[in-house]
């Protein structure tokens, strides 16, 4: 269901690269969206091949339709024909995110990856986030280092945030985070409690939709080893 919620982020994107970064769920989401409801999407093999077919996780494509080495990936970020789904170690109410360092940047308590491509991605491309652990330590009042831009710092477009508990977007006042739906069995109160800032909560919050039969079948074929489940464990 989380994969489907992530795939929904790509609905309507058309002939652009759907780039899932950092794990099975985001990669599956792009491939699922292309398989089921967004057939013009472009997906890659996780390295530098654009795949003509839609292979299962860890399987080499049988058909290659293009080449995207890192230098062209960085070109594409600036060009903008790309929707990326990133991860974040911290995210605030405007969608500013941190993957660089925890604590004071000058001498961090925990050095993480570095800002990587997050500044350019969020400035130039539609961006969504997949956050497998929705906690107040991730959803914070203020991130320690702004790697990805929020709506208050010139983000191009933050589409949605999918977590293990809920789907969120930035339709709240002044581009702040709003609860879109809660996953089955998760209450609004639980999501609010797991969020370290005041969340915009509409009067009625629907439940995140379940996968269709077709989507379940496609996911089983794309991820026979169940890597998507392990990411949530």
């Amino acid at each position, binding site marked *: 269901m989380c994969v489907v919620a992530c795939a929904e982020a790509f609905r309507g994107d058309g002939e652009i690269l759907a780039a899932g970064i950092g794990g099975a769920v985001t990669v599956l989401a792009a491939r699922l969206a292309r398989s089921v409801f967004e057939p013009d999407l472009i997906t890659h093999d996780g390295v530098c091949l654009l795949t003509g077919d839609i292979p299962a996780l860890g399987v080499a494509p049988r058909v290659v339709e293009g080449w995207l080495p890192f230098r062209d990936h960085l070109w594409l970020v600036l060009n903008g024909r790309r929707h990326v789904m990133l991860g974040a170690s911290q995210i605030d109410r405007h969608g500013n995110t941190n993957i660089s360092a925890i604590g004071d940047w000058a001498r961090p*308590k925990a050095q993480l990856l570095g800002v990587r491509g997050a500044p*350019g991605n969020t*400035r130039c491309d539609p961006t969504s986030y997949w956050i497998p652990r929705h906690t107040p330590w991730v959803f914070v009042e203020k991130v320690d280092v702004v790697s990805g831009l929020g709506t208050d710092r010139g983000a191009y477009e933050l589409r949605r945030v999918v977590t293990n508990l809920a789907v969120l977007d930035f339709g709240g006042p002044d581009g702040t985070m709003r609860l879109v739906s809660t996953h089955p069995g998760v209450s609004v109160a639980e999501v609010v409690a797991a969020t370290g800032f005041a969340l915009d909560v509409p009067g009625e919050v629907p439940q995140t939709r379940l996968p269709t039969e077709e989507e379940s079948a496609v996911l089983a074929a794309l991820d026979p080893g169940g890597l998507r489940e392990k990411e949530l464990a």
Partner: protein
Amino acid sequence: MTKIMTVERVVAELESGMTIGVGGWGSRRKPMALIGGILRSPLQDLTIISYGGADVGLLCAAGKVRRVVAPFVTLDSIPLEPHFRRARQEGTVAFTEYDEGMFMFGLLAAAHRLPFLPTRAGLGSDVMRVNPELRTVRSPYTEEELVAVPALEMDAALIHLNRADARGNAQYLGPDPYFDDLYAKAAKKTYVSCERVVDTADLLKAGPVQSLLVSRSMVAGVVEAPGGAWFTSCEPDYDRDEERQRRYNKADWREFLDEQ
């Protein structure tokens, strides 16, 4: 004229305090044999420019580094590089942290001998806060404000490719050139290690003309170093040695030197 030399000779041409670019990306096609040479040398106080992996980690662990210039340091299949983390958390190295695209524009600027190149990447982020020396420029055409990424100038670059000839023409045979040609063009002196030195006439037997990534006019020295990217990947000659990398992540860094 042959430019074939040993790792030790390359290292002897480097000096403490230099700015050195290292090719590859993360834990892919890193010039580890040349890095090993630096680890064994008395060099210190280096500034390392790199899409960083174990190259940065090892040099930090060995106390060779004054400053790291990078958008990330990662082992790819292991997200966080242990030695770079420790160096940052203990405050033993300075850090210039750029966005990946900014970093490429810094390489492109240096390769083209331009003082800077403008980009949108970095605007609005804390990259601007933690690098207070960064300046912006206004487009003379549209008034748009852009980051002026300074040229990543370097005294020397170290890159590892699949094949080279003795004069320094170098060839990649894997799926991605990374940015090794830009390092070669950006540096005052570039040293290429390769899996195998071949006759110039044999280069095109292994790959198409587009695989000739680096021209000899950019190259000061060629080292034949089979396995010279180990334990990082050097496709198609070999994949990353994941088992060795897992040990690297846990063990004393000096074990790497013993096994190299």
